[in-house]
């Protein structure tokens, strides 16, 4: 990483999150602390029940922590979901336009910005297509363009490629990496796929399950562009997987 700004984009400090009350209370997150550098690509990795989606919701401001603080220092957050979650009554362009309309941007400017964002995800000329007329991978790219339309400084991605086939996924990793480099956005990427985390992340935060705690943080010192099938990626992935299995294994007793 050459062009990293020295500042911190996001500070998570002693965050816990409980759901429910009394005997039925469940703790999703336990005292999670984490600093994310501006422009960093951070992967949150963990098995089921590690609270990764909960943590992402806290960062995106969709939910509030029970204790502790999430400080984005006024930065905007954007969110991308596993299901492309496009609004089915709008076209691809219309979906990308919604965040712009919510921010009160004028029509002419919106049009230009929508075209720009769709070109960025290589969907120029697809603005008038409806979500059902696009493939899964294309829908996710529209969703990515929509997340960028929020002018987010921090992009939260909740297993965005989980439902895609391997080839599409591979290509979208390249696309996401390219766009991340060009825009300098900070990415928080939730996944349960170890190789995907190694392929994309500057750092990987491994969360333990029930409740979610930071189990270990891995720095990924592999030159970009990376390939998901390279030996370096495979080696680190093996190490991370071993650690992940340890964490999961503790729940079997």
């Amino acid at each position, binding site marked *: 990483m050459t062009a990293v*700004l020295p*500042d911190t984009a996001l500070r998570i400090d002693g965050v816990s999150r409980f759901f429910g009350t009394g005997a039925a209370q469940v703790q999703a997150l336990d005292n999670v602390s984490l600093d994310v550098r*501006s422009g960093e690509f951070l992967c949150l990795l963990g098995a089921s029940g590690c609270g990764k989606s909960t943590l992402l919701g806290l960062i*995106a401001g*969709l939910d509030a922590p029970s204790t502790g603080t999430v400080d984005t*220092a*006024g*930065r*905007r*957050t*954007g*969110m991308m*979901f596993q*299901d492309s*979650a496009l*609004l*089915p*009554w*709008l076209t691809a362009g219309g979906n990308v336009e*919604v*965040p712009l*309309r*919510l*921010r009160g941007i004028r029509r002419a400017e919106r049009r230009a910005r929508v*075209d*720009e*964002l769709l*070109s*960025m995800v*290589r969907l120029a000329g697809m603005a008038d297509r*409806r*979500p*059902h*007329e*696009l*493939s*899964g*991978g*294309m829908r996710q790219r529209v969703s990515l363009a*929509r997340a*960028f339309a*929020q*002018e987010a*400084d921090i992009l*939260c991605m909740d297993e965005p490629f989980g439902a895609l086939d391997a*080839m*599409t996924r591979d*290509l979208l990793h*390249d*696309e996401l*990496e*390219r766009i991340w*480099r*060009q*825009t*300098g*956005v900070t990415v928080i990427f939730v996944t349960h796929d170890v190789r995907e985390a190694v392929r994309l992340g500057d750092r990987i935060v491994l969360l333990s399950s029930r409740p979610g705690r930071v189990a270990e943080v891995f720095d990924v010192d592999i030159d*970009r*562009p990376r390939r998901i099938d390279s030996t370096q990626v495979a080696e680190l992935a093996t190490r991370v997987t071993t650690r992940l299995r340890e964490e999961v294994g503790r729940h079997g007793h």
Partner: protein
Amino acid sequence: MATDIGINRSSLTKGDTSAPGDTRTAADDLDPGVLAGLDALDIPTAQSRPLAGRAWAAAWPKIGALVVFLLVWQLVVWSGWKPTYVLPGPVSALREFGSRLGTGHFWDALVRTIVRALKGYALAVVIGGVVGLAVARFTVLRTAIGSFITSLQTMPSVVWFPLAILLFKLSESAILFVVILGAAPSIANGVIYGVDYVPPLLVRVGRSMGARGFSLYRYVVAPAALPSVLAGLKQGWAFSWRSLMAGELLVIVPGHPSIGADLQNSRELLDAVGVMASMITIFFIGVVVDAAFNAADRQLRARRGLVAEGNSAVRAAQRGRSRNTAAPGSAEATAAGYPPAGPGAIGHDGGGANGGGEAGQS
């Protein structure tokens, strides 16, 4: 700091669009071709028939059904089950209907009936819409009156007339009162179900984009609820039309001709041909309104990628079987995307041939 980053980024993005693929990654050199190829392969292919073909396909079952109906009617008359002064044949009824079209009285009555219907329906839409939104939004209200709305909906509107006549005498207001009571609960229920069934994911999406309160309703909840609201509007229309016809038979305001009053007059004068002609008028209005609702519904579903016609999933499956290689995606998508007809669901008579809507109103 944050704004600095934002400006910086958007200028970078602009640079990208003017000269794509100018960056250093090897992936960039490979991607566009592979990605474009994958896109081309992935795009679902749509099949469409020419307009004339579609119009004919939509029209012939309706024409056929009408011919069969008229034929059965004529056969019953010919069988001599009832004398023709009680049950006239379709020819004399249609002739009477045709001759009425040339009279001023008919148009006076028609306009009055339609104005009553529209006025009552419009008020029911406003009242039902407001009540529905309030109940969907506030838990206390839902607990208090949520189930009452459904009970009110199941009450035959005719039973309101004694009270309406006591309250408003034999007046326009009495009719309006019952029309509104008949239609508003269905419309309110459509709104309530619509809001209740908005996928939580879409609400999360809206909130993540910064939509709160009114803007969340404006951009996410309202459009997501629209199909159910439309179903409620259609059912509300059916109820208001029924209530109006009952009202016009019972509440005859002197000097105010209407279709219902004409029907009642014909009965009192033992004018069976007149009764039939009035009923043909009522039926036609029902057909026209039903067609309008169906057109709106079909467009709504087409935009969202749901099937255009109820039985096209079946046809797609049959196509797949006969050719063995037909696009599998279309059949699956249709089957998955088409919700089963729930309470008040519309569009199950999307083809229009079975006339479910019309039957419900008579």
